[in-house]
């Protein structure tokens, strides 16, 4: 260490001397290269001033006293820069630590989401769920009961990042612990509302839509809690309709009123569930319209469900310059047979 420091000083003396004699650009270029070396070796600013003063005094022994004294003055200033520099270094280290913790948390959060899309005889299901940053505030879940009913939940926690992620884990465990008779849409939302109302800070809200598909009669029963409406595609008329469910956001009131809706699903029909990250894509021309999402789905509707959602995501991602502003979740349930 002491040795490499001596070598460094020697090298500085050499390039400084050469520059003082030749005063050309190549000399300055050497100085710039040297600066990389001192930064790499974490030589602090005050150290550098001291090296400069020492070197200069050796090269030109007859410097005026005012000049050499001024270096002491400059060094005093540079000590503060040195302190700031070292704090900066330690903050960078701390940030790296945070980032790796975030990565662990993000991969833990992934385990809260379904590992795979459930397979059913009559439904073709596609899902995309992409967080805007590392942690997501969007949640979706599938539940299959013993009668073969398929429950599908989509939720958006208002707020992003870590608080939303923590809240999401609560929703997941609350849903997992519900008894089977509470899996009907209205009962399920009422149960979750109680959990959220009692356990989540009052400035945090969750919107949700929950539906249950009965494969015996091909009916979709659904309820909503202030969630972004989805779409319903009717093959017979080749038309898209809003899939709206009246109901208040989870966690606001102790006694909410949820309503159950029923939709008969025919072959070729499909249900689209989404979060506002899909409909509130912001492009150079402003927010896109819900019609734009419909237009994109139409464009790919002949494809399998997974390919539709992936294509729609790709188009909207592209329209936003590949920078998501909000978490993005899009689910399509298509009746095949």
């Amino acid at each position, binding site marked *: 260490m002491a040795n490499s420091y001596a070598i460094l000083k020697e090298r500085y003396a050499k390039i400084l001397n050469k520059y003082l004699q030749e005063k050309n650009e190549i000399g300055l270029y050497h100085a710039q290269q040297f600066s990389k070396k001192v930064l790499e070796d974490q030589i602090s600013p*005050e*150290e550098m001033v*001291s090296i400069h*003063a020492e070197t200069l005094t050796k090269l030109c022994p007859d410097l005026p006293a005012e000049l050499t004294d001024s270096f*002491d003055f400059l*060094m*005093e200033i540079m*000590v*503060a*820069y*040195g*302190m*700031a*520099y*070292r*704090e*900066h270094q*330690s*903050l960078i280290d*701390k940030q790296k630590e945070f980032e790796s913790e975030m990565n662990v948390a993000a991969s833990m959060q992934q385990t809260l989401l379904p590992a795979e899309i459930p397979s059913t005889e009559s439904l073709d299901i596609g899902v995309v769920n992409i967080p805007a940053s590392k942690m997501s505030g969007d949640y979706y879940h599938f539940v299959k009961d013993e009668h073969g009913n398929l429950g599908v939940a989509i939720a958006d926690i208002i707020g992003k990042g870590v608080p939303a992620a923590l809240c999401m884990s609560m929703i997941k465990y609350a849903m997992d612990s519900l008894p089977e008779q509470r899996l009907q849409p209205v009962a399920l939302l009422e149960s979750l509302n109680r959990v959220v109302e009692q356990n989540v800070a009052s400035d945090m809200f969750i919107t949700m839509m929950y539906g249950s598909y009965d494969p015996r009669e091909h009916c979709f029963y659904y309820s909503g809690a202030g969630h972004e409406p989805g779409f319903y595609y009717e093959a017979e008329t080749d038309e898209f309709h809003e899939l709206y469910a009246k109901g208040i956001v989870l966690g606001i009131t102790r006694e909410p009123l949820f309503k159950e809706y029923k939709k008969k699903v025919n072959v070729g029909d499909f249900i689209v569930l989404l979060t506002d990250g899909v409909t509130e894509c912001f492009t150079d021309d402003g927010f896109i319209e819900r019609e734009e999402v419909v237009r994109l789905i139409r464009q790919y509707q002949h494809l399998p469900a997974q390919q539709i959602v992936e294509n729609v995501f790709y188009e909207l991602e592209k329209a936003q310059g590949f920078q998501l502003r909000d978490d993005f979740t899009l689910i399509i349930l298509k009746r095949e047979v």
Partner: protein
Amino acid sequence: MSIQSNVEVRTEWGIVSARQAGRSLAKKIGFESVDQSRITTAISELARNIYLYAGIGEIIMEPVEQEATPSSPYRRGIRIIARDKGPGIHNIREVMEDGFTTSGGLGAGLPGVKRLMDEFEIESTVGEGTEVRVIKWLR
């Protein structure tokens, strides 16, 4: 060497006297000019904390020696003790955090002092006062 200086701090003049005494002691012990500046800056920060938050206190500066141990050779250095009977620090961990400082920008405050010196100890009791002890060893 048994030259100890003890400077009372109650005004900005006290801060300057402490700096002056610290710098000349550091020079006497044999510190190079960069380390003299660092030691002086540390004294300055400690004295300023006394002036700003306790109103009155003292800075004690003395040479220090350590016999050789299996892990380190014999060494000499300077010890600085900043002592006051001020309000004390409620949450020491907080003031030792980077970026917390209430009296200046990046790098200032106690974390800055800790980085300038080799050893750093702090004791504080709310309502009784604070004592910071730091050492810089000769290289």
